[in-house]
């Protein structure tokens, strides 16, 4: 059973209640002027102007179905849980920051000013709350039902229903249904998603497959190359041996 969140740009009024709830639920105390994701700020509501209209767009971890961060981490510090949230184990992390490099949404952030025990920080979709059967803090706090929490398949059906019922309002696409293999967090909007600041160049398939297709070939490459090099060595060696003493067979 996989949970997720649906964020509807058309409903968001920009009250920032989700930010406050997120800060509180995760024990973060960011200064008020922090307007992008940071180690102590796991979601922000950005305001962008599209066609002269102000739009409020949340930024948070998308909790991909097949996450890049999980696949790239050399020590397995990230995990995609069955419930949906992508969680992080700070006891494994050695701070290589490949997760930050690989994330197509630039979500993971780092405690740059911690000299001894820096951690990667990001939204973990209130994993403890979800485990206890509660909705995420941000969804519970939203007064406009712009962010709703639920099972991913239900949310997906709801999103398509909203588009079908209001085709002149919505941009006909559910962001997160297929992007980079899909994500637990889904976006609905009345504008093109790229104009709202979401990456517009993501392939449909999961990104880890790009490395997987190379990684799967490696055993084959090693055996073939090893055998070829060994064979070359043997042939060259043998020919030189014979050239040195032709009577030896």
């Amino acid at each position, binding site marked *: 059973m996989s949970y997720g969140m649906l964020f509807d740009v058309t409903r968001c009024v920009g009250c920032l209640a989700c930010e406050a709830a997120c800060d509180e639920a995760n024990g973060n105390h960011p200064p008020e002027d922090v307007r992008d994701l*940071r180690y102590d700020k796991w979601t922000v509501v950005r305001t962008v102007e599209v066609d002269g209209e102000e739009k409020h767009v949340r930024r948070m971890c998308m909790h991909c179905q097949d996450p890049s961060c999980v*696949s790239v981490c*050399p020590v397995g510090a990230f995990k995609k849980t069955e419930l949906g949230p992508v969680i992080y184990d700070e006891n494994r992390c050695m*701070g*290589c920051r490949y997760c930050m*490099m*690989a994330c197509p949404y630039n979500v993971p952030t780092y405690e740059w000013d911690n000299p001894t025990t820096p951690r990667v920080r990001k939204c973990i979709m209130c994993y403890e709350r979800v485990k206890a059967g509660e909705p995420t803090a941000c969804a519970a706090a939203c007064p406009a039902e712009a962010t709703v929490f639920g099972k991913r398949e239900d949310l997906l059906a709801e999103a398509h229903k909203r588009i079908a019922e209001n085709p002149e309002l919505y941009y006909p696409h559910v962001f997160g249904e297929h992007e980079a293999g899909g994500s637990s967090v889904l976006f609905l909007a009345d504008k093109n998603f790229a104009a709202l600041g979401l990456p517009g160049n993501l392939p449909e398939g999961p990104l880890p497959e790009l490395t997987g297709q190379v990684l799967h070939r490696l055993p084959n490459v090693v055996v073939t*190359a090893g055998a070829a*090099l060994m064979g070359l060595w043997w042939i060259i060696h043998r020919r030189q041996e014979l050239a040195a003493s032709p009577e030896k067979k």
Partner: protein
Amino acid sequence: MKIPRLTFWRAVFLVVVALGLYSTYVRFMHGLGASTHLSDRTPWGLWIGFDVLCGVGLAAGGFTMTAMVYLFNLKQYYHLTRAAILTAFLGYIMVTVALLFDLGRPLRLWHPLVMGNPHSIMFEVALCVTFYSTVLAIEFAPCVLEPFGWKRLCAIIDKIKVPLVLFGVLLSMLHQSSLGSLYLIVPGKLHPLWYTSPWLPVLFFLSAVMVGLAMVIVESFWSGRALGHKPDMKALAPLGRIMLVVLAIYALTLLQIRWSRETLGLIAAGTEESYLFLLEIACGILIPGILLAMPRVRLQPRGLFTAAVLVVLGFVLNRMNVSVTGMAAISGEKYFPAWTEISITLMLVAIGCLLFNLAARYLAVFPHHGPAAPRVPARADAAVPEYMAAERS
């Protein structure tokens, strides 16, 4: 005891190390934020781009030379292998030390070895680098053991040399290419002039072989100057020819990929990326390719050296483009390393050069220097004109 005279380069060395030590203090007492210009938008900078990506690549001479001498039995290059192995060994030590600076929690460097994630390219690289450093240590051991007369141990290493070299070559193939695979997962972030799935690993491997040979040439010239012996053109000029072949293969692969992806147009797009790409191609492939193709230039020490240095510079530019400038546009941030980052990199390079110099003087690395002559005698000092005549005929 005699106090060494303070020459210009020794003074430079002292300044570089002093600045580097101060930066080291800032890095470990105040963290990455205070010592680097890295940010959430630019999580990897100079240390990964230069110290690690270039460091591993520039150390590729170790596996190319050992493969040529021990697997393909090209014994005429034997006397170049020890210096190449030394360069590689020092290179990997530098890379590891640089990682200790770059990792947020350096004391957990060993974590991948016990909690590895088999889907991670970085895990595979970590394993390969660990094993290959061990292989290099064994390959380098005779240079240390011979002066002390530990013949039995040397004989044992000699016995396992071929499988050891084979293991090292396979490990190198894996991680040299995998450094390129690291970037396969960022199709939306790396500029299409450098992002090519699934060819990045192939390009990284070919360019590593190319730059490995170039480094052997460069380092022969430098050590020759430092130790006062002539570079052996008889061995180095044919090496230049092999480098030309690899260069051509690399260039053709690159061209073919651009052609098939229809991204040739991007080269002439007039963007910052296109200029950097052109510079990289001109400096690292075109000009050295033309130089090496002319026997008149290739057979001259100065010409060969120039071509090799250009290949090295082009290679460094390529790795920096992939890791820093090619990622800049999407990150929305202009990253330029902090002076503390630069000074630590310079310190590592300076210490590497010092260690190379000391090893060349006091260990059995070069046939003309050091306390013990290597087992296979090197060819007598090359008479360049004679050789030029031989190749022309």
